[in-house]
């Protein structure tokens, strides 16, 4: 019973593929997997946009969308039908291209943005046996593909021939490159301890239970620190508040996609959210045990339900942070990345090494927790020390 429910999608895929003649089966199988991703995640995106608007509304003490339900009936669905008119509006709006724009690159930028984001889903394990391509270097594939997003951001910003677009693109690229380093370094700890870049292996290492509690990496000192670093860096990588300088509405209109409208804007919007889901999914795989359950008596719940509930929880934290934290300043952003997160991630690699080579369980817990706390306090104080808080003087605006 459990196995049928857990493997229902895998079995359905095999069943569907069995109708296709033998030589075409690999192609049909990958086509079905691709269409699964293309259907599920944009649908998830549309639900999440409503979730976000309603959630932020609740946090800011207002209603948020609560009208649109099923048309021609009185059913309102708490406003969760809102994404249909929103999507239709996006698709039917006029597509405006600035006269001075570089037409070809302006057209290609949203496409180039979406391709790497969708490719990143190829290596994510959504459930037991539910990885599309299980590369030996899956983790490296994910980060390599993520690096290509910067090109798209630059293309959008540069081709628009708009000062705000270019400023936004410059900010975005500087931010993405800076935060990519702590992002990758915090993931390196997991690779060190597991000894593999394969995402299935990383999950298998976490799919063990002692006293009924899973061996998730987040339940170790280095894993906790790594997860916090990864989470902050993933906020910055997906341009979410408090790191949304690239599209800061109050300063530079919409950043690199200022000159985009209609369907192209929708593609950017989609790309940004899908990127956020993918990077959260990788965080879940690395630190939160992927599709495994946290306690051994809940292993009967299907693996994909665990994955998606963890994903929704992480996305909720993203929304929560967006609604509560103000935007950082550019110099604060850079200081935080280079003077705090990067050294902390490097120290965390050392701590993970110590954890790996110490054998007595309670000893390594004490040593590693002390090291994590000491590093955090020491680096945090260093950051505060340099602030020189005092009366602020302005150079240009007096």
């Amino acid at each position, binding site marked *: 019973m459990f196995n049928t429910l857990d493997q229902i999608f895998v079995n359905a895929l095999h069943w569907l593929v069995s109708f296709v003649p033998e030589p075409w089966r690999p192609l049909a199988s990958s086509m079905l997997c691709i269409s699964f991703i293309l259907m599920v995640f944009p649908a998830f995106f549309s639900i999440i946009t409503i979730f976000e608007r309603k959630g932020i509304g609740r946090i800011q003490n207002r209603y948020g969308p609560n009208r649109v339900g099923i048309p021609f009936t009185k059913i309102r669905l708490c406003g969760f039908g809102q994404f249909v008119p929103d999507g239709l509006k996006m698709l039917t709006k006029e597509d405006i291209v600035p006269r001075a724009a570089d037409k070809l*690159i302006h057209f290609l930028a949203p496409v180039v943005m979406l391709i790497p984001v969708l490719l990143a889903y190829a290596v994510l394990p959504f459930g037991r046996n539910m990885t599309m391509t299980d590369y030996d270097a899956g983790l490296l594939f994910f980060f390599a593909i993520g690096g290509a997003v910067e090109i798209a951001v630059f293309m959008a910003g540069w081709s628009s021939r708009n000062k705000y677009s270019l400023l936004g693109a410059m900010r975005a690229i500087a931010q993405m490159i800076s935060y990519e380093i702590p992002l990758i370094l915090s993931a390196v700890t997991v690779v060190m301890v597991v000894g593999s870049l394969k995402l299935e292996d990383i999950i298998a290492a976490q799919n063990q239970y002692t006293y009924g509690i899973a061996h998730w990496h987040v339940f170790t000192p280095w894993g906790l620190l790594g997860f916090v670093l990864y989470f902050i860096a993933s906020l910055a990588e997906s341009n979410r508040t408090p790191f949304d300088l690239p599209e800061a509405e109050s300063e530079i209109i919409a950043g690199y996609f200022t000159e985009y409208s209609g369907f192209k804007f929708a593609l950017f919007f989609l790309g940004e959210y899908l990127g956020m889901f993918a990077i959260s999914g990788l965080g879940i795989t690395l630190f939160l045990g992927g599709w495994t359950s946290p306690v051994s008596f809940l292993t009967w719940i299907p693996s994909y339900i665990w994955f998606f509930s963890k994903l929704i929880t992480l996305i909720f934290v993203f929304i929560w942070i967006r609604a509560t934290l103000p935007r950082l300043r550019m110099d604060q952003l850079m200081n935080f990345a280079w003077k705090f997160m990067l050294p902390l991630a490097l120290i965390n690699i050392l701590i993970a090494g110590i954890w790996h080579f110490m054998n007595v369980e309670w000893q390594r817990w004490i040593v590693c927790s002390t090291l994590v706390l000491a590093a955090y306090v020491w680096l945090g104080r260093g950051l505060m020390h340099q602030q020189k808080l005092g009366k602020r*003087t302005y150079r240009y605006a007096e």
Partner: protein
Amino acid sequence: MSPAFFITAIVTILAAATVMSLRNLVHCALAMAITFSGIAAIYLQLNAEFVGFAEILVYVGAIAILIVFAILLTRSGEAPEKSVLTAGWAAGLVVSVLVFAVLGWSALNSTALPTTVTAAPKITVKKIGEALMGKFILPLEIVALVLTAAMIGAVIIALKEDAKTENPGRKS
């Protein structure tokens, strides 16, 4: 020679030709990113996953962006009016074709390399890591040292020479 190889090869070579022939430098840089992706695709077809992904990570994600930044920060962004081809391009073409023909001819006729194809060894990422950390640890460390020295040099060049002119209130 599979059709996939031909497609990637043609795309890569066309993109490389575009890099050389376009007037706008930013377009050239973007075409170069396509060339790098094409090379990565060829690595992937040769089952060299690690090299292919590293190619994308380093060349498309970092080098192309670096080039683009360098162009933006040093030029006004307007394309030059005159043609990118110099007067002697025909002679250059002849010379390059001749050089390629000689190289190809000698490579095909050489006996230095074994002509029989041996089965490709199954190289996993783990093996690459073990080789880098074991047999090739010294070269790796030397490369790391050189890169660190280069980075420190870059930081020193970028440092402000006179710290006193810095604004006290908005200390970075």
